[in-house]
């Protein structure tokens, strides 16, 4: 089997690639203009028509889409085709107005799975491999995406979903899994569990891992590689653009190749929106090129990174992006879940607390921890520990319902959370996620 899943396109010349992108972009813009009223209105307001877009050089004329637009248009406002043509939805884990629901036609699912298949092949996967998918299955894109990609490659696919780590390891041993797909923190946890079970990497057959959905460092990569005896590959994606597989790492492990035949990438200045030249650090913006159900033009990811078209030793010509180096908004990714501080604030106010709070995120034994410090008001203070502890529990529960992850709530005395002049510091992220 080839070292590429779709060699013609993965190794196409940059000229061919750009010509293909231009051709697809013209069609995609037309498709959006004709079918998505929300974006048509945005284009009309900016005075741009599909006729103005003749090649990728005209991309900058189009307006940006943001997460706020996705929220405004929820759920059907950005749909590019009749619901009858859609076969699937996937969604982000948020349970608030921030939730993103993406729609797929069968063709959209196929192309998404192709992207994941390319990632698996780039990690050395063939139809002789046993691919254990330990991403969560369900609305989350991780499990279904890699599951589909694994089928396309022809791997024997183990749809394990996440959790039950000892069973994961038993299956790994009994069925000789050679590839594992999951979040990097879960991979690290599997490594620890393996050790606790008295096993070594020699007791399993894994050779590669494809890890994404949350930030991780080179140091974490080395730890995982050592504890599982594998080569660890990064994969990037977001629900808005289909899921994992927007970009993926090859054996060079120096950034992720963007599947440019499906996604057109730009780097912009997050403040001014100005397009920056290759090699600049800025906000990553994606334009889908052949989506039917959920086409997004110039969608601002808020992820900060750098693009580079430096020749890659793997032979792929797709442009590479660095791991996201941060965010241009205040979103946190905690245990793979997107969290905005404002979501926590909404709960606090609803539950009768002040908006003076502090969120502390850390990582213990490769698992993210979320601590929320909230000031108690005079009316809420009681002389019994029982009542205050009950308040902490009930608030933690309300936050859990909002975010889907369990926080530890600490009620503190009034005026003990530092108030700063100007922009308040609401988040302390103690994790070292970026090298």
């Amino acid at each position: 089997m080839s070292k590429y899943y779709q060699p013609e396109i993965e190794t196409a010349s940059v000229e061919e690639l750009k010509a293909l992108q231009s051709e697809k972009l013209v069609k995609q813009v037309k498709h959006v203009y004709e079918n998505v009223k929300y974006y048509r209105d945005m284009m009309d307001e900016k005075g741009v028509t599909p006729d103005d877009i003749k090649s990728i050089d005209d991309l900058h004329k189009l307006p940006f889409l943001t997460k706020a637009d996705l929220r405004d248009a929820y759920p059907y406002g950005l749909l590019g085709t009749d619901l009858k043509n859609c076969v699937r939805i996937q969604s982000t884990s948020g349970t608030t107005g921030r939730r993103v629901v993406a729609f797929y036609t069968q063709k959209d699912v196929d192309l998404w799975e192709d992207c994941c298949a390319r990632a698996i092949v780039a990690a050395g996967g063939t139809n002789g491999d046993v691919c254990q998918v330990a991403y969560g299955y369900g609305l989350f894109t991780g499990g279904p995406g890699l599951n589909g990609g694994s089928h396309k490659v022809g791997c024997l696919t183990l749809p394990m979903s996440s959790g039950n780590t000892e069973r994961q390891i038993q299956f790994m041993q009994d069925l000789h899994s050679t590839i594992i797909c999951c979040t990097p923190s879960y991979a690290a946890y599997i490594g620890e569990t393996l050790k606790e079970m008295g096993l070594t990497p020699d007791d399993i057959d894994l050779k590669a891992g494809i890890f994404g959905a949350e930030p991780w460092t080179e140091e974490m990569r080395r730890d995982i590689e050592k504890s599982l005896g594998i080569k660890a590959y990064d994969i990037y994606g977001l629900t808005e653009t289909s899921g994992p597989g927007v970009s993926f790492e090859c054996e060079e492990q120096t950034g992720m190749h963007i599947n440019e035949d499906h996604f057109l990438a730009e780097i912009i200045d997050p403040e001014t929106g100005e397009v920056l030249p290759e090699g600049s650090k800025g906000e990553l913006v994606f334009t889908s090129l052949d989506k039917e159900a959920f086409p997004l033009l110039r969608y601002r990811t808020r992820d900060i990174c750098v693009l580079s078209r430096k020749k890659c030793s793997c032979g792929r010509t797709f442009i590479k992006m660095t791991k996201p180096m941060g965010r241009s908004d205040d979103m946190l990714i905690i245990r793979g879940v997107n969290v905005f501080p404002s979501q926590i604030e909404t709960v606090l106010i609803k539950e009768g607390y002040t908006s003076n709070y502090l969120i502390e995120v850390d990582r213990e034994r490769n698992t993210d921890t979320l601590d929320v410090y909230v000031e108690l008001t005079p009316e809420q203070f009681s002389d019994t520990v029982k009542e205050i502890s009950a308040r902490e529990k009930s608030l933690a529960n309300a936050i859990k319902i909002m975010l889907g992850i369990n926080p530890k709530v600490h009620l503190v005395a009034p005026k003990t959370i530092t108030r700063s002049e100007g922009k308040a510091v609401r988040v302390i992220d103690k994790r070292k996620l970026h090298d």
Partner: protein
Amino acid sequence: MAVKQISVFIQNKKGRLAKVSRLLADNDIYIRALSIADTQDFGILRLICEDVDNVNSVLKEAGYLTTITDVLVAAVKDDAGALAIIAEALRDADISIEYIYELATVDNIVYLVVRVDDNKIAAAALAGAGIKIANEDEIFKL
């Protein structure tokens, strides 16, 4: 019948108790009795003092969270079984005790602060078991 107790919220951190007790000392506030309940994060300092309203305004002015609660002070003979007599009387009346601590022992009588949900029912239950309830005048004369 009931006695006023003032409770103060303090972070469970080094020096916090020293700070609040220095504040009370500087304001000539005499603590007749106290108890502290603590968790990993915070503690609740409960005080029995004269002129609770004044103590409350001193603490509030300094930015402390406070609350005033009515508690009962039960007086029983200072013998083995003193606590059992009170606890059993309340149990027999189906009353849960939130917390209990000693206020003083004077002339072979032990005075215990008892915090329950309903002071009226609890006082009746204690009186029914022959237990004396001390009022504020009595305890500050001890």
